[in-house]
């Protein structure tokens, strides 16, 4: 177990430790020969702005992906129509497409749209959002479908028998029960969107550049420890989010959504 945790956390320790190495150097230096918080104070403003954009984009992506995934999951699990399996496969198809191909495809689509109707979403927040929703909806669909398949429909029947309308039944009975699946789907969509590079590389522009694209652009050419400093801060933020998530919702809820246990 110690070896496993060591294997998992060693890279994070190296990143955090190297971020404390003082002095100008174009390479990672671990262990640091001189400790300093110098690079934390030299994080460029554009990294902070891009982090804000990435958080906003990832949050919006999670919401939009769920808005599509929940009704789709209800239709796939409960619907009885010809071609249901084909529709399910089609909705999961984005998982099979390399992200860079998605990026190029969306770029071409946007230029074609611009030529046809004069609206080109490339370089705009909505353009990035559409691309990320395409990528992440299958993840949300997967988790919501998993909990819906284990859902005991007698609970809904009981509510209807007692006079609840279909909407009230959904809101007061179905939704709370499938909420772990929704939270899991939202988390996966957020994580995928936040860390995504290939699609954002093609669809971003200088005004709309996500944090991974900024990092990628910087690392392609050179390196300085401010990249490690900002990565360490992101790591600490992620840990804080997990702690808050555990306190409010509980990590167990996420595990139940993806395991084989009844809610």
């Amino acid at each position, binding site marked *: 177990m110690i070896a496993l945790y060591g294997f998992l956390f060693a890279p994070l320790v190296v990143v955090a430790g190297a971020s404390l190495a003082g*002095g*100008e*150097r*174009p*390479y*990672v*230096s671990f262990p640091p020969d001189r400790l300093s918080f110098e690079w934390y104070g030299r994080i*460029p403003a554009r990294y902070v702005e891009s982090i804000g954009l990435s958080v906003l984009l990832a949050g919006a992506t999670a919401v939009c992906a769920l808005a599509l995934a929940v009704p789709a999951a209800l239709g796939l699990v409960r619907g009885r129509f010809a071609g249901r399996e084909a529709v399910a496969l089609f909705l999961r198809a984005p998982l099979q497409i390399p992200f860079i191909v998605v990026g*190029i495809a969306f*770029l*071409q689509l946007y*230029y074609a749209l*611009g*030529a046809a109707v004069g609206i*080109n979403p*490339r*370089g705009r927040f909505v353009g990035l959002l559409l691309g990320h929703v395409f990528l992440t909806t299958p993840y949300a669909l997967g988790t919501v479908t998993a909990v819906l398949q284990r859902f005991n429909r007698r609970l809904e029947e009981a509510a209807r028998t007692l006079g609840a309308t279909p909407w009230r039944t959904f809101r007061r009975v179905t939704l709370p029960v499938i909420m772990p699946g929704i939270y899991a789907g939202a988390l996966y969509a957020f994580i995928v969107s936040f860390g995504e590079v290939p699609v954002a*590389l*093609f669809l971003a*522009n*200088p*005004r709309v*550049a996500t944090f991974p694209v*900024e990092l*990628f*652009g*910087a*690392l*392609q*050419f*050179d*390196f*300085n420890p401010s990249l490690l400093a900002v990565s360490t801060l992101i790591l600490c933020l992620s840990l804080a989010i997990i702690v808050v998530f555990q306190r409010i919702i509980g990590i167990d809820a996420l595990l139940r959504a993806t395991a084989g246990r009844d809610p």
Partner: protein
Amino acid sequence: MTQTFRRWIGALLLAGAALAIVGPATAEERFDGVTIRVATWGGSWRDRIHELIGTELERRGAKVEYVVANALENFNKLIAARDSKPPFDVMEFQSDLWKPLLESGFLMKLTNADIPNAPTHDSVAVSTWTLEEGIVYNTEKFKENGLPAPQRYSDLLDPKLANRVAWPDISYGPYALIGLSTEFGGSELDVDPGLARLKQAALPYFYRSSVELSTKFASGDVWVAPWHAGWAVRVKRAGLPVAMVFPQVKDRHGVIASGMIGIVKDTEVEKAAAFWINRYLSPEVQLAFCSANGIAPVNPHALETMRGDPLLSSLMLLSPADIAKAYAVDWNRIDLADIVDKWNRTTAK
């Protein structure tokens, strides 16, 4: 002469003097309301470009945006945007993209562009700097192990250096492969001799990222690598004990590649773009930018000034004669796609 007349003459003279003082200041070119988009590399490269050129344009009223990616990715963006508004106005690239860009027609001819700092500009791009490729090695490690300094690319295939050599992946560029091939009768048109030697040597590590290589140099995992002088300058400034060798390639020493810049066709900010290029080629910008990045300027005054820097002189070719003696790849004849294909079939693991 009446007093009134003298007063009028005096007033006219004063007005003329005022115009003479104020006149040149109002002649400064302004770019109010102009947004110029520059496609260039990221990191400190973009930061320095902005500090030296971008801030001057901003001072003159322009807004500057950077499309940061490697040149090939930016070229792909131009292709995707064909028949639409181009995604940027000015593009930096290296000479390996010269032929595709020339044939694609994406860049405008600079004949009528206002670039007085460029000696000639009758093509679609001008050279801005020279990248110098050679061999970088750790002098301390070589001395400790009693190894002679490498002189040729084939010296790196010595079994004594087996686990201490980093050879560049083809994605870095074909310079080292071309250099190795010329030692065995090949050239940029025939890299088979070099590929055969690399396959035979079975080197364990091919680097794709200079950042990764600099970390391996710092940790002592790598002692020697074909690399360019810019990185040698950077790691030496960080304290690593490195030296640079420009190996013989046919009857030349070292391999050079050019940095180039062009204006994208159908740009709406042609004047600002021309200003950008002209400023890039000014002596002060050439000196500051090229000294920081370990590349040779095209401006002769800047080149001469850099020769006075001991660190730069020890790692770079800084005289016109030495640069002229370096091997320049003929990008008009080379088939890079074929070289990449052969590389993938021969050395990819």
